Protein backbone atom coordinates (compact mmCIF):
# COMPACT_ATOMS: atom_id res chain seq x y z
CA UNK A 1 0.00 0.00 0.00
CA UNK A 2 1.25 3.49 -0.83
CA UNK A 3 0.81 6.88 0.76
CA UNK A 4 1.53 10.19 -0.88
CA UNK A 5 1.93 13.50 0.88
CA UNK A 6 3.09 17.00 0.12
CA UNK A 7 4.45 19.68 2.39
CA UNK A 8 3.14 23.21 2.05
CA UNK A 9 4.71 26.38 3.30
CA UNK A 10 1.52 28.39 3.84
CA UNK A 11 -2.05 27.54 4.81
CA UNK A 12 -3.31 29.08 1.56
CA UNK A 13 -1.27 26.60 -0.50
CA UNK A 14 -2.40 23.77 1.75
CA UNK A 15 -6.02 24.80 1.22
CA UNK A 16 -5.41 24.81 -2.51
CA UNK A 17 -4.00 21.29 -2.35
CA UNK A 18 -6.93 20.01 -0.31
CA UNK A 19 -9.33 21.52 -2.85
CA UNK A 20 -7.33 19.83 -5.61
CA UNK A 21 -7.55 16.46 -3.89
CA UNK A 22 -11.29 16.83 -3.52
CA UNK A 23 -11.59 17.65 -7.19
CA UNK A 24 -9.52 14.54 -7.95
CA UNK A 25 -12.24 12.51 -6.25
CA UNK A 26 -10.47 11.77 -2.98
CA UNK A 27 -12.92 11.31 -0.13
CA UNK A 28 -12.69 13.79 2.76
CA UNK A 29 -11.86 11.13 5.33
CA UNK A 30 -8.97 9.84 3.22
CA UNK A 31 -7.18 13.20 3.27
CA UNK A 32 -4.63 13.51 6.05
CA UNK A 33 -3.74 16.96 7.36
CA UNK A 34 -1.01 17.67 9.91
CA UNK A 35 0.33 20.98 11.15
CA UNK A 36 2.34 22.36 14.06
CA UNK A 37 -0.43 24.76 15.03
CA UNK A 38 -4.22 24.91 14.82
CA UNK A 39 -5.35 26.57 11.59
CA UNK A 40 -9.01 27.00 12.34
CA UNK A 41 -9.41 30.10 10.23
CA UNK A 42 -8.94 27.93 7.13
CA UNK A 43 -11.60 25.59 5.85
CA UNK A 44 -9.31 22.55 5.84
CA UNK A 45 -8.28 23.22 9.43
CA UNK A 46 -11.80 23.53 10.73
CA UNK A 47 -13.02 20.04 9.88
CA UNK A 48 -13.91 17.53 12.63
CA UNK A 49 -15.11 20.34 14.85
CA UNK A 50 -18.16 18.57 16.23
CA UNK A 51 -17.60 17.07 19.65
CA UNK A 52 -19.72 15.79 22.49
CA UNK A 53 -17.00 16.68 24.96
CA UNK A 54 -19.10 19.20 26.97
CA UNK A 55 -21.84 16.62 27.53
CA UNK A 56 -19.35 13.96 28.51
CA UNK A 57 -17.84 16.45 30.98
CA UNK A 58 -21.31 16.98 32.47
CA UNK A 59 -21.73 13.21 32.73
CA UNK A 60 -18.32 12.96 34.40
CA UNK A 61 -19.41 15.64 36.85
CA UNK A 62 -22.58 13.68 37.63
CA UNK A 63 -20.55 10.53 38.25
CA UNK A 64 -18.20 12.48 40.52
CA UNK A 65 -21.16 13.88 42.44
CA UNK A 66 -22.73 10.44 42.90
CA UNK A 67 -19.39 8.94 43.99
CA UNK A 68 -18.89 11.75 46.52
CA UNK A 69 -22.43 11.35 47.87
CA UNK A 70 -22.01 7.63 48.41
CA UNK A 71 -18.50 8.02 49.84
CA UNK A 72 -19.57 10.60 52.42
CA UNK A 73 -22.96 9.19 53.38
CA UNK A 74 -21.86 5.54 53.56
CA UNK A 75 -18.76 6.46 55.55
CA UNK A 76 -20.72 8.59 58.00
CA UNK A 77 -23.36 5.91 58.51
CA UNK A 78 -20.74 3.20 58.93
CA UNK A 79 -19.03 5.15 61.72
CA UNK A 80 -21.78 7.32 63.18
CA UNK A 81 -20.30 10.14 65.26
CA UNK A 82 -22.88 12.38 66.81
CA UNK A 83 -21.31 15.81 66.94
CA UNK A 84 -23.04 18.77 68.55
CA UNK A 85 -26.54 17.48 67.75
CA UNK A 86 -25.78 17.48 64.02
CA UNK A 87 -27.29 14.74 61.87
CA UNK A 88 -25.10 11.72 61.18
CA UNK A 89 -25.07 12.37 57.42
CA UNK A 90 -24.24 16.08 57.35
CA UNK A 91 -25.32 17.11 53.88
CA UNK A 92 -24.47 20.80 54.35
CA UNK A 93 -20.86 20.25 55.24
CA UNK A 94 -20.62 17.38 52.76
CA UNK A 95 -21.49 19.87 49.99
CA UNK A 96 -17.83 20.85 49.86
CA UNK A 97 -16.73 17.28 49.14
CA UNK A 98 -19.60 16.89 46.66
CA UNK A 99 -18.53 20.06 44.83
CA UNK A 100 -14.87 19.13 44.62
CA UNK A 101 -15.51 15.60 43.39
CA UNK A 102 -18.10 16.83 40.88
CA UNK A 103 -15.55 19.19 39.37
CA UNK A 104 -12.86 16.53 39.46
CA UNK A 105 -15.20 14.12 37.66
CA UNK A 106 -15.85 16.73 34.97
CA UNK A 107 -12.13 17.41 34.53
CA UNK A 108 -11.24 13.71 34.32
CA UNK A 109 -14.05 13.07 31.83
CA UNK A 110 -12.80 15.94 29.67
CA UNK A 111 -9.25 14.64 29.66
CA UNK A 112 -10.39 11.08 28.97
CA UNK A 113 -12.51 12.28 26.04
CA UNK A 114 -9.54 14.19 24.66
CA UNK A 115 -7.30 11.14 24.88
CA UNK A 116 -9.84 8.86 23.23
CA UNK A 117 -11.00 11.30 20.54
CA UNK A 118 -7.52 12.55 19.64
CA UNK A 119 -6.15 8.99 19.80
CA UNK A 120 -3.35 9.77 22.16
CA UNK A 121 -1.26 8.04 23.27
CA UNK A 122 -0.70 6.56 19.82
CA UNK A 123 2.00 5.85 17.28
CA UNK A 124 3.11 8.21 14.59
CA UNK A 125 1.90 7.20 11.13
CA UNK A 126 4.61 6.02 8.74
CA UNK A 127 4.21 9.06 6.53
CA UNK A 128 4.68 11.57 9.34
CA UNK A 129 7.28 14.18 8.41
CA UNK A 130 9.27 16.03 11.06
CA UNK A 131 9.41 19.11 8.82
CA UNK A 132 5.89 19.87 10.05
CA UNK A 133 7.53 21.29 13.14
CA UNK A 134 9.39 23.80 10.95
CA UNK A 135 6.04 25.31 10.00
CA UNK A 136 5.19 23.20 6.95
CA UNK A 137 1.71 21.77 6.57
CA UNK A 138 1.38 18.15 5.53
CA UNK A 139 -1.44 17.20 3.18
CA UNK A 140 -1.51 13.60 2.08
CA UNK A 141 -3.48 10.54 1.25
CA UNK A 142 -2.81 7.21 2.88
CA UNK A 143 -4.21 3.92 1.70
CA UNK A 144 -3.63 4.45 -2.01
CA UNK A 145 -4.29 1.20 -3.82
CA UNK A 146 -4.60 1.97 -7.48
CA UNK A 147 -2.00 3.69 -9.58
CA UNK A 148 -4.42 5.96 -11.44
CA UNK A 149 -5.63 7.48 -8.25
CA UNK A 150 -2.06 7.91 -7.08
CA UNK A 151 -1.16 9.90 -10.17
CA UNK A 152 -4.14 12.18 -9.63
CA UNK A 153 -3.11 12.73 -6.03
CA UNK A 154 0.46 13.46 -7.00
CA UNK A 155 -0.70 15.98 -9.59
CA UNK A 156 -2.96 17.72 -7.06
CA UNK A 157 -0.19 17.90 -4.50
CA UNK A 158 2.59 18.72 -6.96
CA UNK A 159 0.96 21.97 -8.02
CA UNK A 160 1.85 23.94 -4.93
CA UNK A 161 3.90 21.86 -2.54
CA UNK A 162 7.53 22.31 -1.69
CA UNK A 163 8.01 18.63 -2.52
CA UNK A 164 6.02 15.44 -2.43
CA UNK A 165 6.91 12.11 -0.98
CA UNK A 166 5.61 8.65 -1.74
CA UNK A 167 6.05 6.13 1.01
CA UNK A 168 5.12 2.52 1.37
CA UNK A 169 3.00 1.71 4.40
CA UNK A 170 1.80 -1.63 5.64
Amino acid sequence: MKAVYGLFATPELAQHAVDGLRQAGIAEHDITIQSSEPLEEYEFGSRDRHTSMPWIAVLGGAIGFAAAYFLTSITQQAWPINTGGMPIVTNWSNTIILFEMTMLGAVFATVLTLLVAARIPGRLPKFYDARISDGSILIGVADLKNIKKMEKVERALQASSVGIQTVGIN
Partner: protein
Amino acid sequence: MRRHAANSNHHSLTADLLRPVLQTSTTFYVITAVLGSIVLAGFGTWFYQIYYGIGVTGDNWPVFWGFHETNFVFWIGISHAGTLISAILRIVNATWRRPVTRCAEVITAFALMIGAMFPLIHLGRPWLAWWLIPYPSERGLWPNYRSPLVWDFFAINTYLLSSLLFLALPAIPDFALIRDTTTGWRKKLYGKLSLGWQGTPKQWHRLESAMHLMALAIIPIAISVHTIVSFDFSMAVVPMWHSTIFGPYFVVGAIFSGIAALNIVMAIVRKVLQLEKYLQPIHFQNLGKLMLAMSLLWGYFVFNERLVTWYGNTPHEMAALWSTQMGRYSPLFWTMVFCNFILPFPLLTIRKLRSISATVIASVGVVIGMWLERFLIIVPSLSYKGTPYSWGSYMPRWPEIVIFSSSFAAMALLYLLFSKFIPIISIWEMKVGEHPEIKIAAHVQEAEAAGELP
Protein backbone atom coordinates in the same frame (compact mmCIF):
# COMPACT_ATOMS: atom_id res chain seq x y z
CA MET B 1 8.27 36.56 0.07
CA ARG B 2 5.32 36.02 2.37
CA ARG B 3 6.19 32.36 2.79
CA HIS B 4 9.71 33.36 3.68
CA ALA B 5 8.50 35.91 6.27
CA ALA B 6 6.21 33.38 7.94
CA ASN B 7 8.78 30.60 8.06
CA SER B 8 11.66 32.76 9.27
CA ASN B 9 9.41 34.09 12.02
CA HIS B 10 8.53 30.52 13.05
CA HIS B 11 12.17 29.51 13.02
CA SER B 12 13.27 32.41 15.19
CA LEU B 13 10.37 31.84 17.60
CA THR B 14 11.13 28.14 17.92
CA ALA B 15 14.87 28.76 18.28
CA ASP B 16 14.37 31.43 20.96
CA LEU B 17 11.95 29.40 23.03
CA LEU B 18 13.83 26.11 22.71
CA ARG B 19 17.21 27.64 23.56
CA PRO B 20 16.80 27.25 27.35
CA VAL B 21 15.83 23.59 26.86
CA LEU B 22 18.60 22.68 24.44
CA GLN B 23 21.51 24.71 25.81
CA THR B 24 22.86 24.35 29.33
CA SER B 25 25.34 26.77 30.82
CA THR B 26 27.62 26.30 33.82
CA THR B 27 25.57 28.91 35.66
CA PHE B 28 22.60 26.55 35.49
CA TYR B 29 24.52 23.85 37.36
CA VAL B 30 25.84 26.32 39.93
CA ILE B 31 22.37 27.75 40.65
CA THR B 32 20.88 24.26 40.78
CA ALA B 33 23.54 23.17 43.27
CA VAL B 34 23.02 26.23 45.50
CA LEU B 35 19.24 25.92 45.49
CA GLY B 36 19.46 22.16 45.93
CA SER B 37 21.68 22.61 49.00
CA ILE B 38 19.16 24.97 50.60
CA VAL B 39 16.35 22.52 49.88
CA LEU B 40 18.41 19.70 51.38
CA ALA B 41 19.02 21.86 54.45
CA GLY B 42 15.25 22.27 54.71
CA PHE B 43 14.68 18.52 54.53
CA GLY B 44 17.45 17.96 57.06
CA THR B 45 15.82 20.42 59.43
CA TRP B 46 12.48 18.70 58.98
CA PHE B 47 14.05 15.35 59.94
CA TYR B 48 15.62 17.05 62.94
CA GLN B 49 12.18 18.34 63.91
CA ILE B 50 10.66 14.87 63.49
CA TYR B 51 13.44 13.26 65.54
CA TYR B 52 13.38 15.72 68.44
CA GLY B 53 9.67 16.51 68.25
CA ILE B 54 7.62 19.54 67.31
CA GLY B 55 8.84 21.20 70.55
CA VAL B 56 11.99 22.36 68.73
CA THR B 57 9.85 24.92 66.93
CA GLY B 58 8.39 28.08 68.44
CA ASP B 59 4.90 26.49 68.43
CA ASN B 60 3.80 26.38 72.04
CA TRP B 61 0.73 26.90 74.19
CA PRO B 62 -1.43 28.82 73.28
CA VAL B 63 -0.01 29.47 69.78
CA PHE B 64 0.26 26.06 68.16
CA TRP B 65 0.12 27.42 64.64
CA GLY B 66 3.04 29.63 63.61
CA PHE B 67 5.36 29.78 60.65
CA HIS B 68 4.36 26.41 59.17
CA GLU B 69 0.69 27.35 58.86
CA THR B 70 1.58 30.84 57.65
CA ASN B 71 3.65 29.21 54.93
CA PHE B 72 0.83 26.80 54.11
CA VAL B 73 -1.71 29.60 53.56
CA PHE B 74 0.88 31.78 51.82
CA TRP B 75 1.89 29.14 49.26
CA ILE B 76 -1.68 28.08 48.57
CA GLY B 77 -2.35 31.78 47.95
CA ILE B 78 0.61 32.07 45.60
CA SER B 79 -0.76 29.11 43.66
CA HIS B 80 -3.71 31.26 42.64
CA ALA B 81 -1.52 33.16 40.22
CA GLY B 82 -1.32 30.58 37.64
CA THR B 83 -4.11 28.36 36.64
CA LEU B 84 -6.86 30.76 37.71
CA ILE B 85 -5.42 33.72 35.82
CA SER B 86 -4.58 31.54 32.83
CA ALA B 87 -8.11 30.08 32.82
CA ILE B 88 -9.75 33.51 33.01
CA LEU B 89 -7.55 34.88 30.22
CA ARG B 90 -8.28 31.82 28.07
CA ILE B 91 -12.02 32.18 28.50
CA VAL B 92 -12.07 35.90 27.70
CA ASN B 93 -9.68 35.11 24.81
CA ALA B 94 -7.18 37.78 25.84
CA THR B 95 -4.58 37.56 23.08
CA TRP B 96 -1.79 39.00 25.26
CA ARG B 97 -2.05 35.96 27.54
CA ARG B 98 -0.07 33.62 25.27
CA PRO B 99 3.46 34.18 26.66
CA VAL B 100 2.14 34.40 30.21
CA THR B 101 -0.05 31.32 30.64
CA ARG B 102 2.55 28.59 31.05
CA CYS B 103 4.78 30.77 33.26
CA ALA B 104 1.72 31.19 35.47
CA GLU B 105 0.47 27.60 35.42
CA VAL B 106 3.85 26.31 36.55
CA ILE B 107 3.66 28.55 39.63
CA THR B 108 0.34 26.96 40.55
CA ALA B 109 1.61 23.40 40.26
CA PHE B 110 4.73 23.93 42.35
CA ALA B 111 3.25 26.37 44.87
CA LEU B 112 0.45 23.89 45.59
CA MET B 113 2.93 21.06 46.09
CA ILE B 114 5.05 23.17 48.43
CA GLY B 115 2.00 24.54 50.26
CA ALA B 116 0.51 21.08 50.74
CA MET B 117 3.77 19.95 52.37
CA PHE B 118 3.34 22.30 55.32
CA PRO B 119 0.45 20.56 57.10
CA LEU B 120 2.61 17.43 56.88
CA ILE B 121 5.67 19.29 58.16
CA HIS B 122 3.62 20.54 61.08
CA LEU B 123 2.53 17.03 62.05
CA GLY B 124 4.37 15.47 64.96
CA ARG B 125 4.07 12.07 63.24
CA PRO B 126 3.85 12.82 59.52
CA TRP B 127 3.94 9.14 58.58
CA LEU B 128 0.35 8.92 59.85
CA ALA B 129 -0.88 11.62 57.44
CA TRP B 130 -2.44 8.99 55.22
CA TRP B 131 -5.10 8.54 57.89
CA LEU B 132 -6.74 11.55 56.25
CA ILE B 133 -7.29 9.61 53.06
CA PRO B 134 -10.89 8.40 53.02
CA TYR B 135 -11.14 4.66 52.73
CA PRO B 136 -12.76 2.00 54.89
CA SER B 137 -10.09 0.67 57.17
CA GLU B 138 -10.03 -2.24 59.56
CA ARG B 139 -8.93 0.14 62.35
CA GLY B 140 -12.35 1.74 62.29
CA LEU B 141 -10.74 5.10 61.64
CA TRP B 142 -12.94 7.06 59.28
CA PRO B 143 -12.28 10.59 58.14
CA ASN B 144 -14.56 13.17 59.62
CA TYR B 145 -16.14 14.94 56.66
CA ARG B 146 -17.14 17.82 58.90
CA SER B 147 -13.51 18.75 59.42
CA PRO B 148 -12.10 21.65 57.38
CA LEU B 149 -8.82 19.73 57.18
CA VAL B 150 -10.56 16.96 55.23
CA TRP B 151 -12.14 19.67 53.04
CA ASP B 152 -8.59 20.96 52.45
CA PHE B 153 -7.50 17.49 51.42
CA PHE B 154 -10.21 17.27 48.76
CA ALA B 155 -9.94 20.88 47.58
CA ILE B 156 -6.15 21.01 47.30
CA ASN B 157 -5.93 17.65 45.57
CA THR B 158 -8.70 18.57 43.12
CA TYR B 159 -6.95 21.84 42.30
CA LEU B 160 -3.55 20.18 42.08
CA LEU B 161 -4.71 17.41 39.75
CA SER B 162 -6.69 19.82 37.55
CA SER B 163 -3.78 22.27 37.42
CA LEU B 164 -1.28 19.55 36.51
CA LEU B 165 -3.53 18.37 33.68
CA PHE B 166 -4.14 21.97 32.60
CA LEU B 167 -0.38 22.46 32.46
CA ALA B 168 0.47 19.12 30.84
CA LEU B 169 -2.08 18.92 28.02
CA PRO B 170 -1.00 22.02 26.05
CA ALA B 171 2.61 20.94 26.51
CA ILE B 172 2.05 17.84 24.32
CA PRO B 173 2.35 19.71 20.96
CA ASP B 174 5.52 21.36 22.24
CA PHE B 175 6.93 17.96 23.18
CA ALA B 176 6.17 16.87 19.61
CA LEU B 177 8.06 19.89 18.32
CA ILE B 178 11.11 19.03 20.44
CA ARG B 179 10.82 15.40 19.27
CA ASP B 180 10.95 16.58 15.66
CA THR B 181 13.81 19.03 16.08
CA THR B 182 16.23 17.05 18.25
CA THR B 183 18.21 13.83 18.10
CA GLY B 184 19.49 11.20 20.53
CA TRP B 185 18.06 10.86 24.04
CA ARG B 186 15.99 14.01 23.69
CA LYS B 187 14.24 12.64 20.62
CA LYS B 188 13.47 9.42 22.51
CA LEU B 189 12.32 11.16 25.69
CA TYR B 190 10.16 13.80 24.01
CA GLY B 191 8.91 11.18 21.55
CA LYS B 192 7.45 9.32 24.52
CA LEU B 193 6.15 12.49 26.18
CA SER B 194 4.45 13.69 22.97
CA LEU B 195 2.25 10.57 23.02
CA GLY B 196 2.31 10.24 19.25
CA TRP B 197 0.97 13.74 18.62
CA GLN B 198 0.54 14.41 14.89
CA GLY B 199 -1.22 17.75 14.80
CA THR B 200 -4.30 16.73 12.84
CA PRO B 201 -7.22 19.19 12.83
CA LYS B 202 -9.17 16.76 15.02
CA GLN B 203 -6.40 16.69 17.63
CA TRP B 204 -6.15 20.48 17.65
CA HIS B 205 -9.90 20.91 18.03
CA ARG B 206 -10.16 18.40 20.82
CA LEU B 207 -7.21 19.92 22.65
CA GLU B 208 -8.67 23.41 22.43
CA SER B 209 -12.13 22.20 23.48
CA ALA B 210 -10.61 20.36 26.43
CA MET B 211 -8.61 23.42 27.48
CA HIS B 212 -11.71 25.60 27.28
CA LEU B 213 -13.82 23.18 29.34
CA MET B 214 -11.08 22.75 31.90
CA ALA B 215 -10.69 26.51 32.17
CA LEU B 216 -14.42 26.75 32.94
CA ALA B 217 -14.09 24.08 35.63
CA ILE B 218 -10.88 25.41 37.15
CA ILE B 219 -12.17 28.92 37.96
CA PRO B 220 -14.73 27.71 40.56
CA ILE B 221 -12.25 25.09 41.80
CA ALA B 222 -9.59 27.75 42.42
CA ILE B 223 -12.06 30.00 44.22
CA SER B 224 -13.27 27.07 46.32
CA VAL B 225 -9.72 26.11 47.33
CA HIS B 226 -8.88 29.36 49.02
CA THR B 227 -12.36 29.72 50.44
CA ILE B 228 -11.88 26.32 52.04
CA VAL B 229 -8.44 27.31 53.32
CA SER B 230 -10.17 30.30 54.93
CA PHE B 231 -12.63 27.85 56.54
CA ASP B 232 -9.69 26.35 58.46
CA PHE B 233 -9.87 29.59 60.42
CA SER B 234 -13.37 31.01 60.09
CA MET B 235 -15.07 27.78 61.25
CA ALA B 236 -13.35 28.17 64.61
CA VAL B 237 -14.69 30.50 67.30
CA VAL B 238 -11.39 32.31 67.70
CA PRO B 239 -11.08 36.12 67.89
CA MET B 240 -10.99 37.75 64.45
CA TRP B 241 -11.31 34.38 62.68
CA HIS B 242 -15.02 33.69 63.00
CA SER B 243 -15.95 36.04 60.19
CA THR B 244 -18.25 35.69 57.19
CA ILE B 245 -15.98 37.72 54.90
CA PHE B 246 -13.03 35.38 55.31
CA GLY B 247 -13.86 33.42 52.14
CA PRO B 248 -13.73 36.33 49.66
CA TYR B 249 -11.01 38.05 51.75
CA PHE B 250 -8.76 35.02 51.33
CA VAL B 251 -9.58 34.62 47.65
CA VAL B 252 -8.74 38.26 46.92
CA GLY B 253 -5.53 38.02 48.95
CA ALA B 254 -4.57 34.85 47.13
CA ILE B 255 -5.08 36.35 43.68
CA PHE B 256 -3.23 39.48 44.84
CA SER B 257 -0.16 37.58 46.03
CA GLY B 258 -0.40 35.24 43.06
CA ILE B 259 -0.18 38.05 40.52
CA ALA B 260 2.73 39.55 42.43
CA ALA B 261 4.58 36.22 42.34
CA LEU B 262 3.85 35.90 38.63
CA ASN B 263 5.30 39.35 37.94
CA ILE B 264 8.50 38.50 39.80
CA VAL B 265 8.88 35.12 38.07
CA MET B 266 8.21 36.65 34.65
CA ALA B 267 10.82 39.34 35.22
CA ILE B 268 13.43 36.75 36.23
CA VAL B 269 12.56 34.41 33.34
CA ARG B 270 12.62 37.33 30.92
CA LYS B 271 16.10 38.38 31.99
CA VAL B 272 17.75 35.03 32.63
CA LEU B 273 16.37 33.21 29.57
CA GLN B 274 16.63 36.33 27.37
CA LEU B 275 12.95 36.32 26.45
CA GLU B 276 12.53 40.11 26.33
CA LYS B 277 11.01 39.82 22.87
CA TYR B 278 8.14 37.71 24.18
CA LEU B 279 7.54 38.92 27.74
CA GLN B 280 6.99 42.56 26.94
CA PRO B 281 6.19 45.62 29.07
CA ILE B 282 2.51 45.29 28.10
CA HIS B 283 2.28 42.01 30.02
CA PHE B 284 3.65 43.61 33.17
CA GLN B 285 1.40 46.63 32.72
CA ASN B 286 -1.74 44.53 32.31
CA LEU B 287 -0.87 42.34 35.29
CA GLY B 288 0.04 45.49 37.20
CA LYS B 289 -3.44 46.92 36.60
CA LEU B 290 -4.98 43.67 37.82
CA MET B 291 -2.73 43.79 40.89
CA LEU B 292 -3.81 47.36 41.57
CA ALA B 293 -7.47 46.30 41.51
CA MET B 294 -6.65 43.49 43.94
CA SER B 295 -4.74 45.90 46.18
CA LEU B 296 -7.82 48.12 46.45
CA LEU B 297 -10.07 45.16 47.13
CA TRP B 298 -7.64 43.83 49.73
CA GLY B 299 -7.57 47.26 51.43
CA TYR B 300 -11.35 47.27 51.50
CA PHE B 301 -11.49 43.85 53.15
CA VAL B 302 -8.86 44.72 55.75
CA PHE B 303 -10.69 47.93 56.66
CA ASN B 304 -14.03 46.10 56.78
CA GLU B 305 -12.70 43.30 58.96
CA ARG B 306 -11.11 45.68 61.45
CA LEU B 307 -13.99 48.15 61.58
CA VAL B 308 -16.53 45.42 62.38
CA THR B 309 -14.27 43.97 65.09
CA TRP B 310 -13.72 47.41 66.63
CA TYR B 311 -17.46 48.17 66.56
CA GLY B 312 -18.26 44.81 68.21
CA ASN B 313 -15.88 45.73 71.06
CA THR B 314 -15.67 42.28 72.69
CA PRO B 315 -12.69 42.18 75.09
CA HIS B 316 -10.70 39.29 73.61
CA GLU B 317 -11.26 40.45 70.03
CA MET B 318 -10.19 43.96 70.98
CA ALA B 319 -7.05 42.53 72.59
CA ALA B 320 -6.18 40.72 69.35
CA LEU B 321 -7.05 43.78 67.29
CA TRP B 322 -5.01 46.25 69.36
CA SER B 323 -2.02 43.93 69.42
CA THR B 324 -1.86 44.33 65.65
CA GLN B 325 -2.69 48.06 65.52
CA MET B 326 -0.61 49.41 68.40
CA GLY B 327 0.79 46.45 70.32
CA ARG B 328 3.55 43.93 69.82
CA TYR B 329 2.50 42.96 66.29
CA SER B 330 1.95 46.54 65.10
CA PRO B 331 5.34 46.89 63.31
CA LEU B 332 4.39 43.86 61.23
CA PHE B 333 0.89 45.21 60.60
CA TRP B 334 2.04 48.63 59.38
CA THR B 335 4.79 47.04 57.27
CA MET B 336 2.06 44.92 55.71
CA VAL B 337 -0.09 47.99 54.98
CA PHE B 338 2.92 49.73 53.46
CA CYS B 339 3.85 46.74 51.28
CA ASN B 340 0.35 45.85 50.14
CA PHE B 341 -1.16 49.28 49.68
CA ILE B 342 1.04 52.37 50.14
CA LEU B 343 3.91 51.06 47.98
CA PRO B 344 2.01 49.53 45.05
CA PHE B 345 -0.65 52.24 44.83
CA PRO B 346 1.46 55.04 43.31
CA LEU B 347 3.70 52.65 41.38
CA LEU B 348 0.77 51.01 39.65
CA THR B 349 -1.59 53.98 39.41
CA ILE B 350 0.65 56.59 37.81
CA ARG B 351 1.13 55.52 34.21
CA LYS B 352 4.62 57.02 33.92
CA LEU B 353 5.82 54.97 36.88
CA ARG B 354 4.26 51.69 35.71
CA SER B 355 7.46 50.24 34.20
CA ILE B 356 8.66 46.65 34.49
CA SER B 357 11.02 47.57 37.35
CA ALA B 358 8.29 49.43 39.23
CA THR B 359 5.87 46.54 38.81
CA VAL B 360 8.49 44.14 40.11
CA ILE B 361 9.28 46.39 43.11
CA ALA B 362 5.56 46.59 43.89
CA SER B 363 5.29 42.81 43.48
CA VAL B 364 8.16 42.09 45.85
CA GLY B 365 6.44 44.38 48.36
CA VAL B 366 3.14 42.55 47.91
CA VAL B 367 4.70 39.10 48.37
CA ILE B 368 6.31 40.27 51.64
CA GLY B 369 3.12 42.03 52.69
CA MET B 370 0.93 39.04 51.96
CA TRP B 371 3.19 36.69 53.93
CA LEU B 372 2.91 39.12 56.87
CA GLU B 373 -0.85 39.22 56.39
CA ARG B 374 -1.07 35.42 56.73
CA PHE B 375 1.10 35.58 59.85
CA LEU B 376 -1.05 38.35 61.32
CA ILE B 377 -4.23 36.41 60.69
CA ILE B 378 -2.92 33.34 62.48
CA VAL B 379 -0.66 34.32 65.34
CA PRO B 380 -2.31 37.34 67.09
CA SER B 381 -5.69 35.59 67.14
CA LEU B 382 -4.20 32.50 68.78
CA SER B 383 -2.30 34.71 71.23
CA TYR B 384 -5.54 36.29 72.51
CA LYS B 385 -8.21 33.63 72.63
CA GLY B 386 -11.42 33.79 74.66
CA THR B 387 -9.86 33.06 78.05
CA PRO B 388 -7.37 35.74 79.20
CA TYR B 389 -5.44 33.32 81.45
CA SER B 390 -4.36 31.48 78.29
CA TRP B 391 -2.97 34.50 76.46
CA GLY B 392 0.57 34.10 75.20
CA SER B 393 2.93 34.89 72.39
CA TYR B 394 4.92 33.25 69.63
CA MET B 395 8.48 33.57 68.40
CA PRO B 396 9.82 31.37 65.60
CA ARG B 397 12.94 29.27 66.18
CA TRP B 398 15.62 28.33 63.69
CA PRO B 399 13.96 25.16 62.33
CA GLU B 400 10.95 27.15 61.15
CA ILE B 401 13.14 29.84 59.59
CA VAL B 402 15.28 27.28 57.74
CA ILE B 403 12.22 25.39 56.47
CA PHE B 404 10.56 28.68 55.49
CA SER B 405 13.66 29.75 53.50
CA SER B 406 14.03 26.36 51.88
CA SER B 407 10.45 26.53 50.60
CA PHE B 408 11.43 29.57 48.50
CA ALA B 409 14.54 27.75 47.29
CA ALA B 410 12.36 24.73 46.43
CA MET B 411 10.09 26.93 44.35
CA ALA B 412 13.03 28.45 42.49
CA LEU B 413 14.66 25.04 41.97
CA LEU B 414 11.50 23.39 40.66
CA TYR B 415 10.87 26.33 38.33
CA LEU B 416 14.44 26.22 37.08
CA LEU B 417 14.28 22.48 36.37
CA PHE B 418 10.92 22.84 34.67
CA SER B 419 12.20 25.54 32.34
CA LYS B 420 15.17 23.30 31.54
CA PHE B 421 12.98 20.46 30.29
CA ILE B 422 9.86 22.20 28.98
CA PRO B 423 9.64 25.49 27.04
CA ILE B 424 8.45 28.04 29.59
CA ILE B 425 6.42 29.78 26.88
CA SER B 426 4.03 27.64 24.87
CA ILE B 427 5.50 27.61 21.35
CA TRP B 428 2.39 26.53 19.46
CA GLU B 429 0.24 29.09 21.25
CA MET B 430 2.73 31.78 20.35
CA LYS B 431 2.57 30.68 16.71
CA VAL B 432 -1.21 30.97 16.78
CA GLY B 433 -0.89 34.41 18.32
CA GLU B 434 1.56 35.42 15.63
CA HIS B 435 -0.81 34.78 12.73
CA PRO B 436 -1.99 38.39 12.41
CA GLU B 437 1.52 39.79 12.86
CA ILE B 438 2.94 37.40 10.26
CA LYS B 439 0.26 38.49 7.87
CA ILE B 440 1.00 42.16 8.51
CA ALA B 441 4.75 41.57 8.20
CA ALA B 442 4.25 39.66 4.96
CA HIS B 443 2.01 42.37 3.54
CA VAL B 444 4.59 45.00 4.48
CA GLN B 445 7.34 43.00 2.78
CA GLU B 446 5.21 42.49 -0.31
CA ALA B 447 4.43 46.18 -0.41
CA GLU B 448 8.11 47.01 0.02
CA ALA B 449 9.06 44.62 -2.77
CA ALA B 450 6.45 46.15 -5.04
CA GLY B 451 7.81 49.60 -4.26
CA GLU B 452 4.52 50.71 -2.75
CA LEU B 453 6.17 51.84 0.47
CA PRO B 454 8.59 54.76 0.69
